[in-house]
């Protein structure tokens, strides 16, 4: 084999680093959206590769719904501390109070939609012109259509019919005042690529990604972590299960999967065997309609 052979993970990494540096080179006030989930943890590692031994040319920004897993929040704070990078947290709770917004109620209540309000407010507060996010095209059919540099208007809206063509490795980050660009460096990665990369890089994750015993509610055949935030009905039963999380979002709309995978090799083996997609297995929010994700993105969702 030619010694100048680049493994697929190296190729994906090189592409993502190039995209991050384009953000640093083209924008004045970029930010990296960081939730403490595996995809944004991967972005942070890529940023280290792109900019060390220098500092990141952007802060880490977390839009905290207040309904997050405490393990992910702890991880978030420790990581920012260890890297010596700036972390900005804005709380959905504050937006709700300040703007007198109503909280969604009922069986499928989540702060997913409210998160968009806080995100747009935060973008305005700091004047962010680019927000790097960990979305992947393999996650969902509407995301499969999105560009790597996704231009949003002053309301944060995505218009799939007016996307800029994106050619070669040239990214057009030119925008008018008030607009911003969402940038997705790991667009071309799959769930499995992310796990293989985390393994190769030896990255520690919040332990909820690995099997643990947890009290869960069974809702529409899905296991929801029991918490104070979740809507409860009188006949709900709390059961103890060995579970792990494939995605880590809000506790109210992210379901656990039953699992015995205690380490990364076991997780990778489990994903290879799985008959269910990542979001299909875990997300309540995508199921509300056939175009739930597309509609949310048109509304400014990340």
């Amino acid at each position, binding site marked *: 084999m030619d010694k100048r052979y680049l493994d697929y993970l190296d190729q994906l990494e090189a592409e993502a680093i190039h995209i991050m540096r384009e953000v640093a080179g083209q924008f004045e006030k970029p930010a990296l959206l960081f939730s403490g989930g595996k995809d944004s943890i991967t972005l942070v590692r890529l940023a280290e590769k792109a*900019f060390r031994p220098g500092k990141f040319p952007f802060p880490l920004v977390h839009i905290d719904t207040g309904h997050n897993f405490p393990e992910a929040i702890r991880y978030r704070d420790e990581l920012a501390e260890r890297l010596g990078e700036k972390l900005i947290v804005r709380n959905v709770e504050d937006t709700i109070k300040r703007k007198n917004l109503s909280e969604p109620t009922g069986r499928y209540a989540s702060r997913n939609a409210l998160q968009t309000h806080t995100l747009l407010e935060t973008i305005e507060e700091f004047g962010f012109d680019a927000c790097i996010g960990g979305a992947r095209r393999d996650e969902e059919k509407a995301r499969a259509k999105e560009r790597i540099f996704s231009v949003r208007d002053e309301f944060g809206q995505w218009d799939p019919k007016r996307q800029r063509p994106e050619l070669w490795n040239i990214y057009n980050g030119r925008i008018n005042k008030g607009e911003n660009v969402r940038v997705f460096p790991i667009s071309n990665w799959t769930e499995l690529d992310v796990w293989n990369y985390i393994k190769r890089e030896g990255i520690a994750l919040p332990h909820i990604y690995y099997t643990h015993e947890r009290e869960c509610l069974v809702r529409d055949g899905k296991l929801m972590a029991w918490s104070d935030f979740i809507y409860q009905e009188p006949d709900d039963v709390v059961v103890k299960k060995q579970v792990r999380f494939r995605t880590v979002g809000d506790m109210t709309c992210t379901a656990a999967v039953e699992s015995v995978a205690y380490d990364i090799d076991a997780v990778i083996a489990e994903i290879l065997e799985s008959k269910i997609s990542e979001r299909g297995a875990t997300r309540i929010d995508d199921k509300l309609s056939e175009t739930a994700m597309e509609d949310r993105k048109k509304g400014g969702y990340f």
Partner: protein
Amino acid sequence: MDILRFITAGNVDDGKSTLIGRLLYDTKQIFADQLEAIESSGRLNEDGQIDLSLLTDGLKAEREQGITIDVAYKYFSTEKRKFIIADAPGHIQYTRNMVTGASNSNLSIILVDARKGVQEQTRRHSIISTLLGIPHLVICINKMDLVGYDEQVYNQIVEDYKQFAKKLKSKDITFIPVSALKGDNIVESSELTMPWYQGPSLLEHLEQVPVSQDFNLEDSRFPVQYVIRPLTAEHHDYRGYAGKVISGTYKAGDKVTVQPSGQTTTVKSVELGGKVLEEAFAPMSVVLQLADEVDISRGDVIVKAADGLEVAQEFEAEVCWMHNKALKPGAKLLLRHNSTETRCVVRNIDYKIDINTLDHLEDVDQVQLNDICRVQIKTASPLLLDKYENNRSNGGFILIDETSYATVGAGMVAEIEY
């Protein structure tokens, strides 16, 4: 494991989405919940089976109209390779989206309906694929089930295509008879239905097409994207040039020239993430430290002294126009080439290319959406260019509208004047 990026093209009803659906389905990359979502939509194909094309048309408007509007990216892998599919629309009014998908692809699958043979769209997509320098073409003659798997029909289409392909510069063209709907010759070879066909199935072919030599490792080009200056006690004098090796190779000790200033120096080290590497080669993203303090900023290009690179402000290019507002001579635009952006003027439109015949249409006073033309461009500041046919990574550029900032054109350098 390496990556093959490919595009699928073909007429609207030639079964492109079904082919992709079939590739994903037969390689078991479709999850049960995604199938269930299609099943629950209640849309079945004429055989009463689930409609695999629904896997790729992700937008509401696409589902409403039953056509693909924009490029969708799909992923699958086998033990041998990871694949990235750019599923491009077939409609002529979305040619710009096909160009988008083609710009990053190393292989193009062009579908031909066996009942209809070589069509205008077949020619158009073949021409666009070769204009964009895609090294490998695969002509999939689809719907063989509807012509009774007839060898004569297949041979006739191959013959017709070869006749047309004489005009193309493409060196690697492969023909495969398939039925995307039935799954013949997509993943498994179909010895039962087409015993006369001895070649590989589509997937076998995709797995074995060589991709490593598609990277140019000869002409060393390193456009600087960002300068790393930590200014910490530990790295007080550190200055690293962050960028991507878009072609060629770099290692410590290499003599290099910084363009456009022309200063020469030596590579002190090649690094990534603070770790020293022995060598960097395309398409790696790395950091270069240089032996001497030279003035370098974003947009400069570090090249090996031995390699020639044209520093030019005037050149000719092929441009695919991607906007509703027509392009006219004298148009002032922004031009972005790797990490450089400059103003430019389109001084002249030499001719328009008929993308059905490759003929040149002269005396054109404007260029419309989806037209491909040859223009003369003059830029405000010098660019460091290669001809597109010699170096795909350094010969392409985009044109941006000065006020709306829309990407309005894709350009490929054809002739450099100096």
